[in-house]
């Protein structure tokens, strides 16, 4: 787009263009958005210079009119069709549901954890139980440890939706907490679930 095109627009809006050239330039402005914008801005300048003090400066009237007629949404950053406006809430609910479902799914899956004492990494495989017994205890397999062996968790695993607390930090807290309690307190009701680890399983077998 050249200055020459802008100059032609300037001449056109002043009514100084030869009639045979008018049609061609108008068609160009209709098809070229940048030229159309120039037409708008030049008229805005005209509006500023010609308006009386008590008059408001007219901006975007065409957009507002077309929006009120339902021909087009008013110029928002995200333009969308009015015909599909009903999709917005439905899409919002759908996105929220899928995010919630993903979060629940991820919380139920804790494939990698860290050994509480050694810090060595091992894998916990949770086989999804059959649908007839949805809340059965999943078998746990420890691998990559020097004394790797098959173990089964005795805790009843439930899909509660709460975050997985079987982290090294939380386990450490549970192990240390009863020892720090004063005598006479409810040590026997410490709110944790006993978990079999390779160490205590070996020691309990002796």
């Amino acid at each position, binding site marked *: 787009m050249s*200055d020459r095109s*802008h*100059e032609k627009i*300037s*001449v*056109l*809006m*002043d*009514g*100084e*263009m*030869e*009639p045979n050239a*008018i*049609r061609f330039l*108008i*068609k160009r*402005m*209709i098809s070229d958005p940048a030229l*159309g914008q*120039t*037409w*708008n*801005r*030049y*008229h*805005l*300048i*005209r*509006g*500023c*210079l*010609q*308006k*009386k003090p*008590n*008059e*408001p*400066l*007219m*901006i*975007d*009237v*065409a*957009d*507002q*009119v*077309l*929006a*009120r*007629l339902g*021909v*087009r949404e*008013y*110029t*928002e950053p995200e333009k969308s069709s009015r015909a599909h406006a009903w999709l917005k809430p439905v899409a919002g609910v759908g996105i929220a549901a899928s995010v919630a479902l993903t979060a629940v799914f991820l919380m139920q899956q804790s494939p990698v954890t860290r050994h509480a004492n050694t810090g060595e990494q091992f894998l916990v495989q949770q086989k999804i139980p059959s649908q007839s017994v949805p809340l059965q205890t999943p078998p746990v397999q420890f691998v990559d440890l020097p004394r790797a062996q098959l173990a089964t968790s005795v805790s009843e695993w439930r899909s509660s939706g709460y975050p997985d607390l079987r982290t090294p930090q939380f386990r450490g807290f549970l192990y240390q907490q009863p020892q720090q309690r004063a005598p006479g307190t409810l040590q026997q009701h410490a709110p944790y679930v006993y978990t079999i680890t390779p160490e205590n399983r070996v020691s309990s077998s002796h």
Partner: protein
Amino acid sequence: MKKENKQMSEKAIDQELVKQAQAGDTKAFEMLVTRYQQKVANIISRYVRDRDEVLDVAQEVFIKVYKALPRFRGDSAFYTWIYRIAINTSKNHLVARSRRIQNSDVEPEEAERYASALEMQNFDTPEAEFARQEIEAAVTKAVDELPEDLRSAIVMREVDGLSYEEIAKAMDCPIGTVRSRIFRARDAIDRALKPLLAEKPSRVTYVG
């Protein structure tokens, strides 16, 4: 260009835009609105004092124009046609407003509150009003900063409404020079205006 030729040129622009708009081209309708929106505001302001109401009535005018455009045959000039619609819409607005207040069986203070509530149905956000003022200030400043020859040319054209031929006589220069000066003036003002238009806040419209 002679005055009668200038009128023919103006008429040819309207005819072409109307023809395209009647064929369903929304962009052509937008260009028509842009071309006449300030003139329509000027007509409405003679009847309606409140600036927000002027904006509302102007919208009503162009909605009527859009709906009636397929029936416009071009027997009169487009501006004459739109001028009549603007006057009738302004008068109807005043009648409807006074009827709304008369029909409401309320105390004067209540009526005042009711009237202002009606006015609140469609109004500019403070940001939009601020943007308007900013645009006007930017244009005024840009005009003031123009070189003397450009400023004289654009003022004679836009404020005094002179033709290129008349300006050429007044400035004692060829018409081609006038054309160039007016364009350069517009281009300079446009460059000052562009950054402001990039982040122009929208007008809030409440449908109720």
